[in-house]
């Protein structure tokens, strides 16, 4: 007996990269030509090895509870049967293809078919395996290619005043940076599809991050050293080699001078000091742009690149810092159920820059975001270094010119088509149970 299994959103090489968001798959009988099969066939979907690698869970429909195995009945005529599959929170992959879906006839030992996939999740940088760490540093350094690579566009997007104004000091801050990180991550994944952006939990000590094998070890006067096998040794920006970084805290035992995660997630409300109003609008939560975001930057001293807005992306650590900013937003969304951009408690300025009320262009829910929209000239910057937004087989969102609002439902919780194929290790799909 032969059966075929397919999972939606394969890449060009036929590989699947899953997150916590359920993705549709199908199973069907193949050898139906003879027409002599009259009985349906019962099969079970499971993880090939429940002890090792990324783990998956299955459901017969998107909105049903998922479990470690799923029984399906395949019609004899070869019609496909749908199922939904997602990664198990707490059990992401560490290598490409280490999560294997196994389909076997009910009660049988032999698999009829199996398919390796990756539960590709953004993880805490301090807890990466050496192999995950090395894949990330090597791929990021290759994207930089000693200043000659695509990375220079990402540096340009975060340099001049008009460019910075598209992304800072107004409510679009979180959406713009979510798009920025995802754009970079997709470029990294073109080079190595098993790579995700790790996050720096700046409210906790991260001794494994500030090492010569990872983001570099800081020495005197801003010197940052990398080991011989760390390709970030070749890092170049603005025609200059290396990174200038002077931590203002003990990187072995201390943490950045930031408010902690719990305080951050309680931000919200529009009254001064009302940080424990758990959110009447997103305009409250984005106070986090000052602290922890700003304070994470300014926890570095001297002439550290990461300390100033115009030079921050010259330090690769910048992207890990912002990945944590985005993760905090994702946690806030999960905890307070803030996925619907049309609701005022998710996003206050729900029109465009010509609506009433409105805020600066690029920061209203319906505004497209520079540079992916390719709109140039004041009040937008004079050029658009990244356009359109990269489209990938593994996700249908965001589109080529994303709006501020497009970045909100990133897991496709409200609309499956909004899923962007990234997730965080400690932010499940859906909303927090109460």
């Amino acid at each position, binding site marked *: 007996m032969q059966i075929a299994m397919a999972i939606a959103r394969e890449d060009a090489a036929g590989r699947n990269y899953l997150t916590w968001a359920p993705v549709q798959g199908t199973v069907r009988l193949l050898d139906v030509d003879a027409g002599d099969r009259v009985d349906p066939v019962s099969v079970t979907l499971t993880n090939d090895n429940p002890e090792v690698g990324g783990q998956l869970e299955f459901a017969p429909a998107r909105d049903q509870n998922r479990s470690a195995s799923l029984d399906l009945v395949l019609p004899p005529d070869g019609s496909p049967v749908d199922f939904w599959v997602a990664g198990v929170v707490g059990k992401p992959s560490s290598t490409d293809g280490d999560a294997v879906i196994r389909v076997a006839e009910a009660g049988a030992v032999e698999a009829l078919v199996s398919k390796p996939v990756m539960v590709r999740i953004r993880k805490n940088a301090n807890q990466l395996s050496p192999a995950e760490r090395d894949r990330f540093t090597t791929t990021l350094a290759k994207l930089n290619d000693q200043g000659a690579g695509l990375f220079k566009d990402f540096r340009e997007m975060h340099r001049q005043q008009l460019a910075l104004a598209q992304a800072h000091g107004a409510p679009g801050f979180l959406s713009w940076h979510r798009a920025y990180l995802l754009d970079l991550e997709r470029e990294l994944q073109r080079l190595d599809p098993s790579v995700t952006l790790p996050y720096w939990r700046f409210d906790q000590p991260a001794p494994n991050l500030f090492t010569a094998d990872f983001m570099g070890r800081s020495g005197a006067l801003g010197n940052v050293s990398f080991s011989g096998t760390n390709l970030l040794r070749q890092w170049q920006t603005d025609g200059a080699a290396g990174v200038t970084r002077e931590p203002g805290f003990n990187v072995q035992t201390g943490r950045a001078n930031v408010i902690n995660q*719990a305080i951050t997630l309680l931000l919200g409300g529009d009254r*001064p000091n009302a940080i424990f109003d758990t959110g009447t609008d997103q305009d409250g939560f984005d106070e986090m742009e000052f602290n922890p975001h700003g304070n994470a930057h300014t926890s570095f001293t001297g002439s550290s690149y990461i300390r100033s807005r115009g030079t921050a992306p010259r330090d690769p650590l910048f992207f890990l810092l912002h990945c944590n900013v985005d993760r905090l937003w994702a946690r806030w969304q999960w905890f307070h159920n803030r996925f619907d951009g049309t609701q005022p408690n998710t996003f206050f300025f729900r029109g465009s820059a010509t609506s009433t009320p409105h805020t600066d262009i690029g920061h209203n829910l319906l505004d497209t975001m520079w540079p992916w929209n390719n709109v140039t000239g004041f009040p937008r910057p004079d050029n658009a270094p990244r356009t359109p937004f990269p489209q990938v087989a593994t996700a249908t969102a965001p589109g080529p010119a994303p709006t501020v609002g497009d970045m909100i439902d990133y897991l496709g919780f409200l609309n499956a088509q909004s899923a962007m194929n990234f997730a965080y290790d400690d932010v499940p799909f859906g909303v927090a149970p109460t």
Partner: protein
Amino acid sequence: MSEQAAQRLEEELRRELREAQAAHSQYLSELEATAEASRAARSSMEEGLPGDLDDDPAMTVLTDTSLPDEPRIQVLHQLGPSLSRRDEFIEALLAIVKDRSDSPAVREAALQALGSAAFQVLRFRPHQPAYDDALHDLVADPVPALREAAVGILAQQHDPVVQETLIQGLRGEGSLPVERERAILLLAEDDHLDNLPWLRELYRSGSESVREQSVRFMGSYPDARSTLEGILRDKNESTSVRQQSGASLRHLAPDRFEAVAKEISTDTTDDPEVRTACLTALQHLGDTARVYADTEFVHRMQDVSGDESAPQVAQVARELLERRPDL
């Protein structure tokens, strides 16, 4: 499965939030008491706060220079996010930073808060000129940490005023706001300046860390090419400085780097760490097809890959061979 994991995450987070809420409520009570005492003291001295700030415990405490440092700095840390939207908060921070009679620790904390606020470009725009002025004032401040912070921020922006101050100081025509080594490195952040003579001076006189920085910035100057090659080849130089020299040479002259890196990586008498760094760069960056087309080098890599006296080099050599396009 995921449902149970989500439940655990939610319970853990809810506990964190309860604790944070309790701690914050306690803090607000203490702040109110401190503010009350401050108001009373100011009232007795007939020193009021302007306008509606009078009622705000956070602003009352932050601006009371007679209080100890800790409660004032705590205001910035605990309440900064919500205060940062208020113009009077930014103005108070600017006043604290500029007041040389105020506590250095509070001034440093206020400067950090201003730096954080400056990331909010649109919101901070009205305050930017005053912030720039404050930074320029700090260049001559008596507190070294504040001087260093301001010079660092301005030098990173290639600010011509601070660059001129540093140049004059290095030439002995004025006082340096920071130590000489730092001054050279701050100027080196702008490769439009003629920094090479100072970088050579730094290399000759500095510690290992400073030499590494010097070599790093030399990579912006084509005239440093032969110096960098010499340092990369110098087996008496430290591993880290040689590795950085390789990166800088590769930036200036990739072909030359490739030739030298091939020599070093196959030299079994050389430092394994430097050999590893050379091989890693050859494997991943630039015209790797050309590297693999060098059959003699590839042949020698096969020897290196089996040399267990330098296991790390052997491992990278094996990785390089495994990536051969003809395999």
